[in-house]
């Protein structure tokens, strides 16, 4: 399966082959449900100048995004994590880049799920 910009489908495909549709849907739902509160935590930490807390929130988003193959979300959150680790500042543009990447996430994940399920049914 070809990688689409912003998402490497191999991770959801691997999950679909092992755990089937219920696992993939559960993992994607977990991502979509749990990332917005972590972004809110990230924003609040940055607003308070708490770079260690911002770095932890960003790192957590990096991990989740990586495990579902959302490469642009992963890279945007990683950039914030690195800036926070250096004590900041974290420019607003970095958070905007994460917002933009996350806005595409539901569409990318739904498309990847559909293809992953087609692949397992065909296989």
């Amino acid at each position, binding site marked *: 399966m070809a990688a689409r910009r912003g998402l490497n489908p191999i991770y959801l495909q691997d999950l679909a082959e092992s755990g089937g549709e219920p696992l993939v849907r559960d993992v994607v739902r977990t991502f979509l449900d749990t990332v917005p509160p972590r972004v809110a935590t990230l924003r609040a930490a940055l607003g308070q100048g708490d770079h260690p807390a911002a770095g932890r929130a960003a790192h957590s988003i990096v*991990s989740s995004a990586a*495990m579902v193959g959302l490469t642009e979300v992963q890279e945007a959150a990683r950039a914030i994590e690195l800036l926070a680790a250096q004590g900041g500042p974290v420019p607003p543009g970095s958070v905007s880049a994460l917002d933009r990447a996350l806005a595409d996430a539901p569409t990318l994940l739904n498309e990847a799920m559909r293809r992953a399920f087609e692949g397992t049914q065909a296989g």
Partner: protein
Amino acid sequence: MTSDTPNGRGARVVLVAEDDPVTTKILLHRLSHEHGFRVVHADDGTAALAVAEREALDAAILDIRLPGLDGLGVLARLREMPRYERLPILMLTSLGSERDVVRGFELGADDYVVKPFSPAELIARVRRLLARGETDRGTA
């Protein structure tokens, strides 16, 4: 499901210390549903140590970047406990964290994987560590 119930105590007990809910969900599914391990989960370092005190662990998977006491701190404390001196311990780390990996080995970690990891590879590594532990005990 792959059967994995040695040592007369039922399923082997694996501690997963991980605060990321997505990674946790994937690990729990693969370890318990597919491979028959009993998984005990903690989402911070202090909770991980409490679980380790309460349970008889057969292996541990520790995220290095845990909130509070981090994974390296948990690793160091586990190695101080006589019953966990030889516990198979695998660390989860991120790209660009080579210093953490080196520190983990210095503190007694047996192996590590970098996120994003292949769950199948992680399971294979855990099973290899468990098998090696069985062999070591058999030849000791």
